[in-house]
């Protein structure tokens, strides 16, 4: 039931563009200004324009990507990675986004990832497509399955080809629906964030009274384990460290 619900809610977000557009002309102007500023290496100005577009609600993978580029050029590695992550989440198949995210990631010093090749492949596969795309694919399968089932009834269950097709589509539907729901649930559970200040001091408890346990470099992607007021518990996966940092020092995933 939860699976179905999440797929449904995703479909809600998927609706094609029948939303009313207020001032597309002004937005085009902003986008053009931002690009001109970026080309002129005035990244602060470019950033301001892109942020205005974001504030206007024009959320898209491409906008997040451009914001990431601008922050990168603005020497703010943490924010750049946070934006790229959002872009990649919305559009996992985009080659440019993936390239720039990896480019930025390579500038962050971190211990070598000890996860096995198979696990990595699994993780990459899981992120291969956005939850919304998967949900649509699952729905298409659902309709196809209904059509094939109707055909089978009309043919009185006869026809080997039709039966195999039905089985195949049925399995595909179950697979896609499960994947979509897991993906959407994973996206909705914000459990990753990016450190946006250099050498963020992770303390041993959710207050500045606690001692600093370790320092995290800017741009490091960390797991979010919990929150107490304005303090966020983070976990560093390969090292196995856990500490508390202030919420302004981290950008969690999600819009």
């Amino acid at each position: 039931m939860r699976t179905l619900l999440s797929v449904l809610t995703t479909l809600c977000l998927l609706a094609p563009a029948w939303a009313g557009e207020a001032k597309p002309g002004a937005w085009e102007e902003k986008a053009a200004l931002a690009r001109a500023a970026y080309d002129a290496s005035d990244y602060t100005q470019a950033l301001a324009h892109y942020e205005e577009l974001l504030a206007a609600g024009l959320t898209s993978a491409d906008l997040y990507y451009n914001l990431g580029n601008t922050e990168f050029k603005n020497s703010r590695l943490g924010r750049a990675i946070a934006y790229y992550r959002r872009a990649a989440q919305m559009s996992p198949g985009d080659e440019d986004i993936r390239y720039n995210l990896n480019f930025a990631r390579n500038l962050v010093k971190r211990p070598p990832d000890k996860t096995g090749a198979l696990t990595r492949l699994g993780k990459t596969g899981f992120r291969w497509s956005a939850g919304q795309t998967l949900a649509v694919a699952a729905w298409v399968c659902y309709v196809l399955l209904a059509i094939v089932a109707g055909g089978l009834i009309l043919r009185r269950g006869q026809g080997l080809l039709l039966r195999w097709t039905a089985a195949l589509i049925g399995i595909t539907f179950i697979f896609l629906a499960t994947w979509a729901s897991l993906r959407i649930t994973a996206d909705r559970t914000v459990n990753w964030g990016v450190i946006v200040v250099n050498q963020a001091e992770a303390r041993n408890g959710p207050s500045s009274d606690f001692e600093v346990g370790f320092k995290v470099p800017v741009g490091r992607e960390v797991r979010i384990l919990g929150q107490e007021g304005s303090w966020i518990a983070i976990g560093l996966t390969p090292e196995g460290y856990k500490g508390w940092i202030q919420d302004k020092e981290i950008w969690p995933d999600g819009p």
Partner: protein
Amino acid sequence: MSQAANKKIRAWLSGIAACAVLPVFFANPAWAQEVQISARLTPQQAAVGQPLQLVVIISGKASINAQPQLPDLPAFQVSRGGRSSNFSFVNGKISSSLSYTYVLVPRQAGKFTIGSITLEHAGKIYSTQPLAVSISGSGQAAPPALQQPAPSQAPQSPPRAAQTGDAMFITTEVDRREVYVNEPVMLSFKYYTRIAPLSQPQYQAPETSGFWSEDLPPQREYTSVLNGQTYRITEIKTALFPTAAGTLTIGPARLQVHLQDFQRRGGDPFNDIFSRNFFSRGRQAELRSQPIKIQVKSLPSQGKPGDFSGTVGKWSLSAKLDRREAKVGEAVTLEIRIFGEGNVKSVGKPDLPVLTGFKVYETVSSSEVQKKNDQVRGVKIYRTLLRPEVTGTLTVPPITYSYFNPDTRKYEKVQVPALNLKVLPGEIRAAVPLDPASATTGEGVKVVARDIRYLKTKLPLQRPARPLPAWLLISGFLLPPLAVLGIWGWQRHQDRLLADPRYARRRRADQSAWRALRQARRARLRGEGKKFYSLLAQALAGYLADQLGVSRSGITQREILSRLREKGADEGLTGNLNALFDECDFARFAPNEPPGTETEKHEQQAEALLTQLNRILTRRGKA
């Protein structure tokens, strides 16, 4: 060697010195430059029993290995002190300087002349000018050089005087006893002596575990008057940096001295000098100073900056790039210099800001320590190799460095402004080889500069769509199974129609009855009364026959009514039906056309009956 032989040699030597060597010495300045000998006596006035120091200095451009020879000095007790040498290598030539120290203790009062001191070197003999000395009388005959001081005689005796009496002692002193971690403590070791030991004293530095120790050369030597006595003082200074908080102890300094036991030997001092091989019969003594406790405080935790790396002192920061312009991929060195006062070697690495657009390589450090005016100063240099990866103006953000200043007892922060580097494109190889020959060499793409990819130029300037309405979603998921169910039901219905003729008749009964009723209405409208009633009766009777599963022709009105009663029809319904049937029969078989006034009423009655019958019969049928 017998005394007679010694005297002969001395006579011979002085003869040569007087007759041959001196004229040569003065006549040939070249020789004088090669080896020089001089003597110094301090003080030039003394009391009987008060030791005098005679220093003979031999210098020259060659390595000199000879011993100076003292003249006959019957009025003094002579003991040989230390020998120190200093070699330097200037312009490819060795020059050496030797100094021999003798202690002369006057035995009697009067004015004396110390004759020429001679030196034999490379077949030549060199000598010094005679020295005059006046000794005041005190009646004390040949007092020992080392005397245990009576407390009353040395009221101003310095603290921690060592145990060989006031003729020779050592002290250790510190400039402060309470410091912060890594704040320097100045330890000065002083060796006071009025007499010369037989050999160079062996200094053993105090135990300073827990400290980072930094020697502060040079070793200073000076004379100072203490309690009316002239002492020769040797001072060694050391800066100590405590490495941890707590109480640390500077152990005692030790000095091994080798003294002549004058009391026991006495005799002719010249004899001693000439037979110095037998000098080992002197007395060994060890001088010790008191240990010192130092209280080391840990640095305050209040206001400790995040980037503080434990550096204490007074520091400044400078940073520079070794060039202002570079091509992509060329190495650029970022040099950060931290300079000031404190323990240079413990200066920690500054946190580098994030260097976007650069590939950052390892940082190497070097330090230069300067010890001047008893302070440890210096510079620690961190050099980081950077390689710009993108073109444009790259910025190294401001670099900050925190340290603790023990004078102000506060953490202080120094910062250098951001540095800019203009990065020009590297040499770009033509994508299409200009030379066709090189196209076949298989040389791959050469990466010149790596950078992030460019912006997305076609931004989707639309707000993300509003959520789909719930009804659309629900129907999107409900319609397909409903359609499947519909198909299934329709097919089942078709199958039954084929397989079950009674079912088919009953399914068609309603349809054909209403069809007949419509025909009847058309007949009524055309004014054909008989046809109207005939069709009306046909519709009702046909419907009932179909529903009850009997032949249309082979059933009587009575039979129909009884079957209807079985199905649960009430008397009202059957009565109305019976009446209508009668009306129909009456009108059909009457000779005249039936009156048009009743037809519409009867049609409505038929429709109502059909609806009622349909309700009863289909319900019953389903049940």
